């Protein structure tokens, strides 16, 4: 097991959102304030770790013909737990994420990791994989949130910082482009972030090639 390598994969080369392009629905829909992004990222990370551990522990028991159905039921169980916990202890977050919490069940990141990693590897390695992929997912969400919130309402840290959680006003709200926190902004920001990410990856790769020459 190589923690560093798994973390690097989760954050960069195999980042669930930016490189594997999984879990797009929630990434586009809820990234309108920092609070949403961090909350969603934490929820998905917790569910990812739990489901990875359980699926990895049961990987020799689950018959391969019905494995997808079994995975979905396991994931749905954890999602329900997190949903109820959020409603009880963080009602603000539960309200602003709304139906996208139960929809974590069909988030391809979780099913994807179950199929690609947890069903083939040991419990501990799967837990680490869940953590690393979760961190990668959260980082991608936060990047999207920061860009969209800044351009869309001119603030930083909405829901967390500032008075009444309104965020710190970086520039007057009058100058903000409201479209950026609407669906259009989601698609556009995501397009530019993925393009920037691909450009960065290629640059690093080219440097490595030059270094080895």
């Amino acid at each position: 097991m190589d923690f560093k390598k798994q973390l690097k994969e989760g954050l960069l080369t195999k980042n669930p959102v930016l490189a594997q392009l999984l879990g797009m629905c929630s990434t586009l829909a809820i990234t309108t304030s920092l609070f949403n992004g961090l909350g969603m990222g934490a929820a998905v990370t917790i569910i990812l770790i739990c489901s990875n551990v359980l699926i990895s522990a049961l990987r020799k028991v689950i018959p391969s013909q019905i494995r997808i159905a079994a995975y979905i039921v396991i994931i749905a169980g954890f999602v329900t737990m997190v949903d109820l916990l959020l409603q009880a202890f963080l009602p603000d977050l539960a309200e602003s994420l709304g139906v996208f919490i139960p929809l974590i069940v069909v988030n391809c990141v979780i099913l994807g990791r179950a199929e690609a990693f947890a069903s083939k590897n040991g419990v501990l390695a799967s837990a680490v994989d869940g953590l690393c992929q979760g961190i990668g997912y959260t980082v991608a969400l936060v990047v999207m949130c920061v860009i969209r919130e800044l351009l869309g309402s001119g603030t930083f840290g909405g829901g967390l910082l500032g008075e009444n959680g309104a965020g710190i006003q970086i520039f007057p709200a009058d100058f903000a482009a409201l479209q950026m926190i609407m669906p259009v902004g989601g698609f556009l920001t995501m397009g530019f972030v993925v393009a920037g990410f691909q450009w960065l990856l290629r640059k690093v790769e080219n440097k490595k090639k030059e270094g080895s020459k």
Partner: protein
Amino acid sequence: MGEGYIQALLGILLSAVLTENYILVKFYGICPFMGVSKKIDTALGMGMAVTFVMALASAACWAVNLALVALQAEYMQTVAFILVIASIVQVVEMFLKKSVPALYKALGVFLPLITTNCAVLGVALVNVQEGYDFLQSVINGAAGGLGFTLAIVLFASMRERVDKTDCPQAFKGFPITLISAGLLALAFMGFSGLKIF
């Protein structure tokens, strides 16, 4: 069932297709929207299959929810709904394979994918949240599916052209696709003021 009820039904229909389009406004079902929109034919096939499953799932989940409410087990909604949806998709797949092999062949790969389409689970959850009755749920499901079809077919025809154009290296492939989707979403924002009833 008065005139007001029919108007409410039409309102649900129009808003699910245009103003509250499941993909471009609500962001349900982005994965198949990006994955299966390279060609108009396959996009249309996927849209039809999703519409059918969404309508059926809305009906079935409405009934399941009644049972859950009677048992005071509403917290099991997510688990129960996803199981119902998975079995519906399985049944539809087997039924098509036996009785309409031509359609089955055309849809083939996309059918099992529908289980993990957030639009299907999304519509079931929205129906419960909004407290829709049976007919309203089914209409909302079918209209949501039609909205999905409209968006994915429009997008596929856009993409067939965009894929052939020359764009900066870093934007090749997925990023430019997302940006074109953004422009389509911008066009759909034009519907947001639409109010007929």
